[in-house]
């Protein structure tokens, strides 16, 4: 990890103060063990690096030591042996309370103090850091906005009068109060209903897009891990790393049968959920304008060996499909064909849609093809079942070489094993096909 900047600051507090708006710093666990009493170690010689600005999910069955691992990072639990570096600084060399004020901490059911208002809860860390009243008030409002709660409405409420989801939003705001470079989240959404949970997961990804913190996220929910993780560390007993990789790697190439079993069947279905349309090679239909001549279009379809064409308006927005049979025997501009000819396009998908949504659209459409639109509803390509199948196969194939590189490590996992390629970029290689203007990453 690049940590050459460790020269001056000796504590995370100093590091955070120096950085101004604090983006993530890497976390390194080096040979970390924890045993309680004389029993088998809960965490056994764990070495792993959480790259700066990424969400790393610790995923594993209950009792595998993932929460213990997380708590050793902010020293709620002291490791028996090993070193933990945060931003290149040894956690042990710092006063624990001071350290924790610069590591955001979010737990299940938020852990809000019921006798303090929302503002009071969020203000705790700034108070300890000695901020003045007005700076704290400003920061509280800013954070409430950030997590999607109207400050005027929620600032003075007590936690009891918030829904579970709102409480957890406040919990996240409290963790972010002092703009820490690192965030630890211990099953934060575990107690929420599925819909709220999904909303908050989306929100977290949005926030992370803005903030680029280093986030360690503990969960036992596979879907949550796949959805949120830039990388996932699958832990077995004693926090042994069974596999450490991007969600795509883990789905396409489970390290051993236990991972396969844990991730569950239907890994192709899960890949569909993970892969965005903008990241796959799109099909392209023959494009036509309402003013094009029918005979001419017929010829072009023939040349392209296609059965159908998409009719676009002046703004490049897809209007309807026309097939060869619609064109047969007709003449004049395409636009004046009888309205029964061809089918109107009701369903379009965008580059941000998942392949799962694309498949759903395909199943509901009356053609075996669905157009993909970019900005301003402009046509950029089309998806067919063949597109989807090929995309999934490509993901699997791309993972083949990775296996050899990763073969080294039982106890260790270093992100370089996967070439250090950010997840979506790995898929994006084949994806230019017109989706370029959708390329604003999440």
């Amino acid at each position, binding site marked *: 990890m690049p940590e050459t900047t460790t020269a001056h600051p000796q504590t995370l507090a100093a590091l955070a103060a120096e950085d101004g708006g604090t983006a993530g710093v890497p976390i390194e666990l080096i040979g970390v063990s924890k045993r309680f009493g004389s029993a088998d170690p809960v965490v056994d010689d764990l070495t792993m690096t959480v790259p700066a600005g990424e969400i790393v999910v610790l995923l594993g069955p209950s009792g595998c030591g993932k929460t213990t691992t997380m708590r050793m990072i902010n020293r709620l639990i002291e490791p028996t042996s090993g070193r933990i570096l945060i931003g290149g600084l040894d956690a042990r060399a710092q006063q624990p309370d*001071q350290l924790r004020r610069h590591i955001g901490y979010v737990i299940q059911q938020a*852990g809000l103090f019921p006798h303090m208002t929302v503002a009071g809860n969020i203000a705790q860390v700034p108070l300890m850091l000695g901020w003045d009243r007005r700076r704290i008030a400003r920061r509280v409002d800013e954070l409430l906005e950030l997590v999607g709660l109207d400050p005027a409405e929620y600032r003075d409420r007590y936690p009891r009068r918030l829904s579970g989801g709102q409480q957890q939003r406040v919990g996240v705001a409290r963790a972010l109060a002092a703009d820490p470079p690192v965030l630890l989240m211990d099953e934060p959404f575990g107690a929420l209903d599925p819909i709220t949970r999904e909303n908050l997961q989306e929100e977290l990804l949005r926030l992370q897009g803005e903030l680029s913190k280093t986030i360690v996220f503990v969960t036992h929910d596979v879907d949550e891990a796949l959805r949120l993780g830039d990388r996932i560390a699958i832990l077995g007993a004693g926090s042994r790393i069974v596999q450490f990789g991007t969600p795509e790697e883990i789905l396409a190439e489970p390290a051993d049968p236990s991972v396969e079993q844990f991730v569950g069947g239907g890994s192709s279905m899960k890949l569909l959920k993970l892969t965005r349309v903008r990241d796959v090679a799109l099909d392209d239909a023959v494009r036509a304008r309402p003013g094009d001549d029918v005979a001419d279009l017929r010829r072009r379809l023939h040349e392209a060996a296609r059965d159908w064409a998409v009719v676009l308006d002046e703004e490049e927005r897809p209007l309807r499909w026309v097939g060869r049979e619609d064109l047969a025997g007709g003449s004049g501009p395409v636009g004046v064909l009888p309205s029964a000819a061809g089918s109107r396009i009701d369903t379009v998908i965008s580059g941000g849609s998942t392949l799962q949504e694309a498949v759903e659209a395909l199943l509901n459409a009356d053609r075996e093809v669905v157009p993909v639109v970019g900005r301003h509803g402009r046509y950029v390509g089309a998806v067919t079942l063949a597109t989807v199948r090929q995309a999934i196969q490509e993901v699997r194939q791309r993972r083949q070489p990775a296996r050899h590189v990763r073969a080294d490590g039982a106890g260790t996992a270093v992100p370089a094993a996967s070439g250090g390629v950010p997840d979506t970029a790995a898929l994006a290689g084949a994806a230019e096909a017109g989706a370029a203007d959708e390329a604003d990453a999440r």
Partner: protein
Amino acid sequence: MSAVGTPAARTGGGPAAAPLGAGWRTLLTPAGVLLAAVATVAYTQAADLDSTEARSLNLPHIAAKTWEHVGLTAVSTLLVLAIAVPLGVLVSRRWMRWSTPAVLAVANIGQSAPPVGVIVLLAIAVGIGFWPAVVALVLYGMLPALRNTMVGLREVDPALVEAARGIGMSAWRVLVRVELPLAVPVILAGVRTTVVHNVGVAGLAAFINGGGLGELVVSGVNTSRVATLVVGSVLIALLALLVDWIAGVVTAALRPKGL
């Protein structure tokens, strides 16, 4: 997650649980108590008393004894607070948890021994007067306050304490900012029990010359004057009711918002 109102929290028993009525009904209790007190005192002035009774039941004497009684109760309650709450906090720290049974056992002895016996034993040990009576009251009233402090702190959701540590609060700050405020309702319920008990037990102080309304009762018994005995008993009971009401109001006022 609130630490309030669970059965364990009221182990002190009785009056601690009485809810406060809303609005004007809150004032029914003190109004009734005052009315009854006025009626009782008016009786002592209007009734045809012999000289023995008149010595006990004249206004200045009743007022003085009532004041002594309030003094006994107030001083002993303050001492109980000053000892029981810090002790309860200390005993419920993680590194002191082992001592819980021992501490509770000692406090239990204080309460389960008959108060008359405790008072008389103390008189033998340390003499008679106001302060020995206060010591007896403190011993006797310690248990509810101590136990409720321990229970109140124990019932604070451990996840909250962990969250507080996790965001960087020191142990002391967690205690002052999180644990104690959340335990306040339970602690105050214990104190309320203590103070009401003490009003009653303070009546026994008269046995060792500690003063208070108990003197009316004792002299009523010694001189076979039923009126004196009844007036003394009724005034103690009314004082207990009034003190319970005041404690209730204070508890409601000090209860943290948001719970």
